């Protein structure tokens, strides 16, 4: 079972897109790829106040990811804690993973010509820290949740 997930507290989210830039800045990504995103729903009046819902999406880190078996060089790996990542050394940039993913989540880094995707900033997680988007969320709306089986 996946050990982690990222949860967005919609009551605190202000749709500022900080998470997207925290991610890009941490991963040193050029213009183009974007590993997480905030979506704004169309405004609807709730008790006479027009409201918008915000949704956060990065990678679902599927229990049975399609991107893993399809990779010809076994660069896409699911770790024991559930994190699905792409080994940049092995990746040849064929983008088979993106084709297999129902949401086309893996993207091409135009600078390295390799596939990249959200890995929950596993280097940070392994160092006892939280993903960049969560650590620096402008309003502390994003939480990095560790799931426990009961």
């Amino acid at each position, binding site marked *: 079972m996946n050990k982690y997930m990222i949860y967005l507290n919609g009551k605190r989210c202000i749709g500022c897109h900080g998470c997207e830039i*925290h991610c890009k800045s941490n991963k040193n990504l050029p213009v183009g790829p974007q590993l997480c995103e905030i979506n704004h729903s169309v405004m609807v009046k709730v008790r006479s106040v027009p409201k918008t819902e915000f949704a956060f999406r990065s990678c679902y880190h599927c229990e049975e990811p399609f991107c893993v078996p399809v990779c010809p060089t076994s660069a896409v790996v699911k770790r024991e804690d559930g994190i699905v990542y792409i080994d940049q050394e092995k990746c040849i940039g064929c983008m088979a993973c993106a084709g297999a993913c129902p949401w086309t989540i893996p993207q091409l880094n135009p600078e390295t010509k390799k596939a990249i995707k959200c890995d929950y900033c596993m280097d940070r997680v392994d160092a006892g820290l939280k993903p960049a988007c969560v650590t620096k969320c402008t309003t502390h709306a994003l939480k990095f949740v560790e799931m426990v089986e009961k």
Partner: protein
Amino acid sequence: MKKSVYSICGMCTVRCPIRVETEDNKVTWIEGNQNLLGGALCAKGSAGPALVADKERPQQPLIRDGARGSGRWKEVSWPTAYDYITDKLQKIKSEYGPESVVLSSRGGPWQSMYKSFIHAFGSPNYTNHDNTCGRNTHHASLSINGVGRKGFVYDIKNANHLILFGRNMFSSLRIAENLQTLDMLDNGGKLTYVDVRQTITGLKSTRFLQVRPGTDYALALGMIHEIISREVYDAEFIERYVSGFDELREFVKQYTTAWAAKECGVREKAIKNFVSELKEDMPKVIFHPGWNLARYKDSFYASRAIHILNVLMGSIEQKGGLIIPKGPGDCGVKGIQNIDYSKPDIKRGDGVGWKYNHFDKGPGLAHLFFSAMESEDPYPIKAWIAMRHDPFCCMPDPRKQEKYFEKCDLLVSIDAHYSEFGWFSDVILPESTYLERDNAICVQKGPKPRFGRRQKALEPVNDTKPSWQIFKELADRLDMKDFFPFDTMEDYWKWQLEPTGFTLKDFEEKGFIPLSDKPVMYDPKELDGQFKTPSGKIEIISKKLSDAGLPSLKEYESPIRPPKGMFRLIVGRTAVHTHGHTINNPLLNELMPENSLWINVKAANKLGIKDGDLVEVASESESYAGTIPAHVVDYIHQEAVYMLHGFGREIPLQTRACHAGVSDQKLMENKLDDWDKAGGGINLAEVFVVVRPSIRNSARRVEL
């Protein structure tokens, strides 16, 4: 080598505390200071390293090599640029006197250095950008409370009710303030939001009042009427600290809630319910008196009315109310020292302090120098040094400004970015970015005051310099050798801290020096001496205003409706850009490369405009027009269109931003003289624009 440095962000002028990790002079991690913000940073803050790496910023001094604005530049060394500037300054000084030189900056905690420079040079003419920002609010607060707008901080976290008049705080993003507001809402607090459109801030509100543009004052008057007639005010506080309450009561009799509701286009019941809530919530009620209120012709009076609402709540120095900011003295600590040169005893070129006696003399009013340039009255203005200030992007009608600035013999821009003014100027001195420069230690006042410091995280990657060094080196060449008698910022910091008993080591643990562990509060029953008005009371009737021939309680005048086929232009901010500063930042530009025009769905239908269509927006006489996509929404008033400020830039070296979007200030044709004689702010929302579907939406397109 790996390093971790505490500093202060510089992507906008909120200046959030940050921590930066670097390796081999490259940023590897940047976050909000964990000790103050729990790591929180905004998109702009994280895009800081992209600014450092961006080659589309000035990288060495440039001297104009063609007509002004032609974009022809000669790359020069620092000594050559300094010589060019100082030769001209000396010549201007001997020919016209030192007062012919104006220096403008953004303002902020480090302005004393820039102010001292121009004072030491011999000119009283220091100014800043506040005529297009907080002057109306500032002067409103001064006239009532005797202290400026920074004379209070807001204990939002502990409030029961926060009321915002068009203050879109989740877009202007003062992170600490935003965290407080969300904490307050999490704790069941209420947020009443007043604006001409629904914003990200309004989304979080518990009550949204969409008003007709320009009627904030009417709504505030209606609220005051209801509060007084139902006696929902702190009578004891008013009795003790306030003068002029009886005049106020008489004055607002005419402004009933029924009248206000009709004038603003809101339901009367909403105002009445609101006042009922206040009854339960006071004194933990905060009416935010506005940040940028350089908007309507009566914004100064609207801000005064909002300040009066706070007074009625008796919320001053109450938990969850308006707190008087405490400084080192309140914590038994001596303050830091700053270089300081007193203002030369020459009257200001903008008339503030002798022609206009009701304004704060500190930074004067930048736009009033233009008439002096034109008429040479009281004396000629021959040079303008813009320190991180972009008059062309701040103030209306840059084309008209160009005509005035043409009368100057020297225009200098000191900035980490190319500014629109810089592009027109004679010399661009590239300042190092905030990650590459040190700034002076500053006092951050509040209930828990502290000393803060911006410390460079990187060595400059280009041939740029920090502002302190630029001014020091200019001063050395101008025979002002005593101006900054320090060789490094570290020496200056040490000198600044001398009286305090602290040392630089004390910054290391948290990135700042805390002066108190817990909030320092005065006794709310012992506030005598806190209001620096002539009478020492909170004055609803101000003699300073009467002396200037201005009423303290001004009769309301309904704003005019836009002429047929036109809309009132409302401008604002977003969480992903800082005015014109960040439009060209690679990461932020990717998020928002151009602005759009918000238009009400009914108004759009009449014009045949659908969401996403391109529309042409033109100034009143159509001398400037631009094309942007329409954002058709329900929740904007039909008289208004809204766009984000800062776009429509015309600097070719900013390839991402050049000609992207529409510039609001270029749409503000002939509006340089449309300013508030009572508050001093430019009326940035007294502007009408033409909107029509763009011919570029054609369904057919042939390629030949």
